[in-house]
């Protein structure tokens, strides 16, 4: 009996002492944190992907609370709706940013760009890239070892096992930019999603001269300038034997797609073209 009593008393005393110490310590070392940070953090997607440029959602929330305006602060995952919620909490305004999506600028599939060698090393693009220019004749194109796939937290990019080229799942892509950083060949670009997800881009990064590119890959950009000449909106520039379509100027007229001799300009999500019987007749 005595033993039980002593045990209980000891426990009570120890517990009470600990509580008192904890109470004073928590008072003494209390850190004030703006409660709005928690609110903003709750409104964020909690992906901690770093796409906003901050390490984790909480740091981004902190930055939003401290900033005077929300200009330049964007959660690419949540996009404008999320930023509107954040703005509401903070009583600030937000400018709607055009949603972007990742595109892979290489079409060098196994058919278009035959493999000349067999890579036998660690399956990482960065290690292969350190070693040599790739299994094919093109030293600019995709290595196909899937570092982008590994870097993606949203399961939005996958290397197609048949073509060995990564494909982006538009619905899942949050344009956080992780794959852009992961690709050692710098093939991935964040482009404006465009109306109805319609996009036009040059799917090649080869800066080799035309004949070299052509020899290595059937769908490489050879820098022939045909698209540059045909573009009515000055949206295309040619640098280092490579065409680039600026998405802020492009009006999606698709004239460049028609003239490209190597089919290296890709159009996405457009309705199928009408068969232009007249033109072909004239050409023939």
């Amino acid at each position, binding site marked *: 009996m005595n033993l039980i009593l002593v045990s209980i008393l000891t426990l009570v005393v120890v517990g009470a002492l600990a509580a008192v110490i904890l109470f004073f310590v928590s008072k003494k070392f209390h850190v004030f944190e703006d409660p709005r940070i928690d609110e903003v953090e709750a409104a964020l997607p909690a992906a901690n992907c770093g796409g906003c440029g901050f390490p984790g959602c909480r740091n981004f929330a902190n930055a939003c609370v401290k900033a005077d305006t929300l200009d330049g602060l964007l959660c690419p995952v949540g996009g404008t709706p999320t930023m509107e919620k954040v703005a509401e909490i903070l009583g600030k305004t937000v400018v709607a940013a055009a949603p972007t999506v990742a595109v892979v600028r290489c079409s060098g599939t196994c058919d278009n760009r035959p493999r000349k*060698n*067999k*890579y036998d090393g660690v399956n990482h693009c960065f290690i292969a890239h350190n070693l040599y220019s790739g*299994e094919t004749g093109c030293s600019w194109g995709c290595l196909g070892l899937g570092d982008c796939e590994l870097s993606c937290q949203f399961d939005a990019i996958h290397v197609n096992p048949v073509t060995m080229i990564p494909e982006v799942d538009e619905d899942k892509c949050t344009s956080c930019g992780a794959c852009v950083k992961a690709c050692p060949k710098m093939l991935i670009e964040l482009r404006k999603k465009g109306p109805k997800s319609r996009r036009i881009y040059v799917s090649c990064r080869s800066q080799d001269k035309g004949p070299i590119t052509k020899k290595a890959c059937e769908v490489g950009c050879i820098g022939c300038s045909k698209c540059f000449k045909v573009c009515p909106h000055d949206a295309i520039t040619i640098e280092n034997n490579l065409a680039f379509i600026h998405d802020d100027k492009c009006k999606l007229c698709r004239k460049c797609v028609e003239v490209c001799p190597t089919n290296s300009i890709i159009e996405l999500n457009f309705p199928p073209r009408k068969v232009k019987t007249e033109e072909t007749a004239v050409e023939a």
Partner: protein
Amino acid sequence: MDKLIISPAPHIHSGDSISKNMQAVIIALMPAYLVALYYFGLGALIVSFTAIVSCVLFEYLIQKFILKGDTTIKDGSAALTGLLLAFNLPSNIPIYIVIVGSLVAIGIAKMSFGGLGNNPFNPALVARVFLLISFPVAMTSWPVPEALSMHYLDAVTAPTTLRNMNFGVQPDTLNLLIGNIGGSMGEVSGFALLLGFAYLLYKKVISWHIPVSILATSAVFIYILHLAAPESYIVSPIDYILSGGLLLGAIYMATDYVTSPMTKPGMLIYGVGIGLLTVIIRISPVYPEGVSFAILIMNAFTPLINTYVKPKRFGEKVKAKK
């Protein structure tokens, strides 16, 4: 010649592999195994066979049906664990205890941490200690050696040299060497174990650092105790390291790749630690055999040693020769 292969240098490999290392250790254990078969006969055969088969089987089952991955039983590490476990058991122990031990070794000490390479503690020793605490009587009734014995569970038992030492009985060095003493089946013959050590050194499977530092430390420590109190510590350092599981532990258990430090200075620290702990634990009359505890305790320090003890870097504080 199809497509040329491209890979980063180096383009040649030594041909060394996990299974080669495991095989070498198993070969090195063979002399001691033969001695065990000679002195403990049928019991040794049954216990070792059960331990090896059940360890390999448990590894296979866990990898196949619980982890649902590739099985790695071919690398020989499970078989080695089984053999080492058997070496740490008395030859008259019932089969079900051996199987429980195998399950603990493979299931708890190895697979639950992620399999070979990730286990912090030596699986065979975890199993041994588990059995020692769970089945203290079965684990400490050592059969008396008898040439080509046909006894198994019915073997005659007697106290071991270590317990006798604590009671003041001087062991016989020759018997310690050839293994004509009671004890766990693999630990009895000092000569056979040293023969295996020589083979491992020749094959460069292990380096001398861990075994030698353990043996030297415990010998020196017991000699100091002997000088301080000759009437309590009667045993000579040579007999001391030959008796009990010290040689088996120092050569085959403490040198387990996964659970020992990777740098030479780290190995020495680890070995000295095991040597000291072994003697300290052995002094206690409750556990006359302290090697397994000592090794497990130092296993826990291995990550710490690996983090803080760096190898000697090139160009760091060296004197010019000549």
